[in-house]
């Protein structure tokens, strides 16, 4: 029961880890290259969720300074870091996709198992 309450209190973390596991499992088990890329994105996003959830203070407001207001702000650092993280993830995705399109031109497939089959027949 105590464990359950603990889990309920940290449900953002739990979901983040769950998503990380789903992403990694999809990335490692599916042989379709585009699906691997999507799964990589899910994995990255889950870590970003974890980071932002760490920076969240309960009842805090977005860290924008307004005139004459003394309110609780959330930690702005994880958010601004994750901004960079998202850009990095997008650039990796773009590079991976352009590689996939090139691979498709040479092999005629985007399935890793089929690529291995083609290579072994040569």
């Amino acid at each position, binding site marked *: 029961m105590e464990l359950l309450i603990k889990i309920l209190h940290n*449900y*953002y973390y739990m*979901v983040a880890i*769950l*998503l990380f596991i*789903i*992403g990694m*499992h*999809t990335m490692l088990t*599916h042989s*379709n290259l*585009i*699906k691997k*890329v*999507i*799964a990589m*994105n*899910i994995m990255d*996003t889950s870590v*970003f*969720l974890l980071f*932002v*959830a760490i*920076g*969240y203070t309960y009842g*805090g*407001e*977005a*860290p*924008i300074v307004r005139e004459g207001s003394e309110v609780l702000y*959330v930690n702005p650092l*994880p*958010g*601004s870091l*994750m*901004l960079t993280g*998202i*850009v990095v*993830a*997008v650039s990796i*995705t*773009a590079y991976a*996709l*352009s590689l*996939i*399109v090139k691979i*498709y031109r040479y092999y005629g*497939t*985007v*399935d890793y198992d089929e690529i291995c089959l083609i290579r072994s027949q040569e």
Partner: protein
Amino acid sequence: MTEILTEILNALLLTFLVICAIAVAQIRDMLSAVIVFASFGLIMAIIWQQLSAPDVAMVEAALGTGVTTLLLIAAISKTRRAE
């Protein structure tokens, strides 16, 4: 009252996030998987707004959902659609 409702909304969004992630893994049609992934990104953007990180939400909506989906669809249109 509003706090409880917000909590319920957050929990629902997170549940939907997990469902989307599993659906992306299971769907065999790549185009549908990409669309589900786009909805995954949008829900993530809402969650970040809930977590008071509006700039991350904005970047996720623009880059993570918009541009990534665009690139994925461009790549699928150049390759094949079935897994």
